[in-house]
Each structure stands twice: as C-alpha cells, then as structure tokens.
C-alpha cells in the first residue's frame, strides 16, 4: 500500500539555523499539507498546497516558513531561522482529491529539536 514518507525522522538544530523537512506524498495525490504537534499538545494545521501554490495557511505559518515542491515527488517545509518554540513533531499529509469524501494520509513525522 502506498504511503507518505518523511525524512529525516529526527532533526536536531541550533537556534537560528535553517532546516528543511522533506516529504514524499503518495504519487497520485494532488493536495499536500503540513501540520505540527508540539509535545503533549494537539495537532495544528500549518499550510496546504495545490497546483504549486499555497491554498491556505494558518497564523502559525509566518514569514519564517516556506513550502516548495521542487520536483514531481518531493514536498518540503523550510524554516529559515529556527526558534526554540519550533521544536515539535512535523507531519506531512497528502490527499488525492478535493471536494470529495477523501482522506488525508499522514507521514510518520519528523521530530524537530531546536537547541
């Protein structure tokens, strides 16, 4: 069964450094998402992406964040200058269609630790 993959599984970085989190969505999916979960808290939406542009973003997704689909398979989340409060689990998700009772499939997550 196809699945969403994410790399790395764990990333440790120094405050102020840039990080890029990578995701490979399911191959015939068209809509892509990033969510984050601070330890012990609920999962929060960051951004959705379709047709090579951002569809929707939350208040969390400020100028420090950006997303890109650099090729036909990868979907990346970049944090330009990490802060301590960016430490969280970051989940990528994808779905095939919009406007249907379709499901978002989640990747296994990347644990980001900012020191």
């Amino acid at each position, binding site marked *: 069964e196809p699945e969403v993959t994410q790399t790395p599984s764990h990333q440790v970085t120094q405050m102020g450094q840039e990080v890029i989190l990578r995701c490979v969505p399911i191959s015939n999916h068209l809509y892509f998402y990033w969510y984050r979960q601070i330890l012990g808290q609920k*999962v929060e939406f960051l951004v959705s992406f379709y047709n090579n542009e951002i569809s929707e973003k939350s208040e969390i997704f400020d100028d420090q964040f950006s997303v890109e689909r650099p090729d036909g398979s990868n979907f990346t989340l970049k944090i330009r200058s990490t802060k301590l409060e960016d430490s969280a689990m970051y989940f990528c998700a994808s779905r095939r269609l919009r406007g249907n*009772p379709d499901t978002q499939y989640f990747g296994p997550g990347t644990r980001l630790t900012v020191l």
Partner: protein
Amino acid sequence: AQTVTQSQPEMSVQEAETVTLSCTYDTSESNYYLFWYKQPPSRQMILVIRQEAYKQQNATENRFSVNFQKAAKSFSLKISDSQLGDTAMYFCAFEAGANNLFFGTGTRLTVIP
C-alpha cells in the same frame, strides 16, 4: 470557526472490554467530515475511521464504530474487544469543504492486560 472538544484526557479499559471515547464539535457548515485518528507511541497518525456528515448510518471498521449525533454535534468512538495494541492517543478531527483538519486535544487510552 470550527472547534473540536475531547473532554476525556485519559481513559483506561481492560483487555477484551469495550470503551467509548467522546468528541463534540461546533460548526456552522452543513457538509463536513469527521475522523478519528490513532497516535501510538511511535507518534505516527493513523486513520481509524471516517464519517460523512450527510450519511445517517454510523461508520464501522471492524472493532471500531462511531455514534454520530448530528443534531447534538457529537461523534463518539467505540472500541470493542479492546486489545493491547489499541493503547494510544486518539484524536477526533473535523474537516469542512475538503480543507485542512481541525483536531481535538486527544484522549490517551490505556488498555490494561
């Protein structure tokens, strides 16, 4: 604005018994979808079950079933014949207009052998 409330932070159940996890939501949308996701210690988000709001029939997936009460905006998850592998965080989630998911704060379920 959409909100999802899970009022039970923690629950436990004996192996082979039945447990029900509660979820309520608030929305002005008429067409939406509700989900239960499981997050085991590995922290991966796994879809357990999905319910379309326009369907009156409650969804079932093997040992998992929901009690969807649209008027009351309630969406509870029943796990029958609980197994040790069911130990996890369970998140209720809401989606309207095929957009992003709104999650509740989760219920930590422990299955006791």
